[in-house]
């Protein structure tokens, strides 16, 4: 996978989360892993379309999702609900949108799909055709894993 396509997603994730929450986000070591990817329980998936295809997954625990949503909505949300789903999906949408916009501004032809969110224990994301770059992001609300799998067509 070309790193040119990965870095904009990581940069966008850090910047968007910092802007949306007013807190610092620290990035961990990048790892390349084969499918399937185990998730932490809440996974918002954005499809990547155009000259490259693949997906970006924002993966976090329900507890971290509630804390992030509480901060972004300015109200305490103690139980996972529709507003948490909507907030996490929008966070993923903003990250994907900013990353793809950066790549388009560099001359690539790309687009994204609206986000889809999956929840559940012991859930896995599979795609045998794509290797996945996993970037752990440490936030004040808990860990957020950014998974990016892109293939040039």
């Amino acid at each position, binding site marked *: 996978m070309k790193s040119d396509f990965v870095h904009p997603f990581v940069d966008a994730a850090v910047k*968007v989360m910092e*802007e*949306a929450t007013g807190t610092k986000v620290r990035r961990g070591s990048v790892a390349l892993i084969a499918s399937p990817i185990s998730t932490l329980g809440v996974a918002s998936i954005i499809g990547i379309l155009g000259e490259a295809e693949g997906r970006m997954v924002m993966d976090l625990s329900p507890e971290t999702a509630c804390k992030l*949503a509480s901060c*972004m*909505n300015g109200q305490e949300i103690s139980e996972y609900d*529709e*507003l948490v789903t*909507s*907030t996490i*999906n*929008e966070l993923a*949408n*903003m990250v*994907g*949108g*900013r990353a*793809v*916009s*950066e790549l*388009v*501004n560099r001359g690539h032809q790309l687009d*994204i*799909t*609206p986000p889809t969110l999956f929840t559940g224990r012991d859930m896995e994301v599979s795609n045998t055709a794509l290797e996945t770059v996993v970037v752990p992001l440490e936030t004040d609300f808990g860990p957020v894993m950014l998974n990016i799998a892109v293939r040039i067509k």
Partner: protein
Amino acid sequence: MNEVKKTKKCPVLVVDDSEFVARLMIKMLDESGYQVVGHAKNGQDALAKYRELNPEIVTMDIIMPNMGGIEAISELFKINRRAKVLVVSAMGHANIVDQAMKIGAKHYILKPFQKDDFLKAVDIVRDAA
């Protein structure tokens, strides 16, 4: 002049498939004196609500299911060629901004946004000719 206009309860239609973003924008608009008359979750819904509610300003997302924002803006101008549209999107690349402005959007703001920046953008659209 701006304060006088705000007290007139300028009607706004919020178009965004995200409940989170819509709630945020509605709260900000309410607090600053705008009158939010409706919320649509996609382009088709936006066109129906525009006809029904006749808002002065429309905030329009771009990436939405069923009908996206670019197509919705084009269709909206067929209903009212003087419609005032503020694009509020996570997509900020030059191609899409140019496209939105070329078909008639008055202004463009990128998500995530701060309250002051968002309201300033709404004011610009409200005051646009």
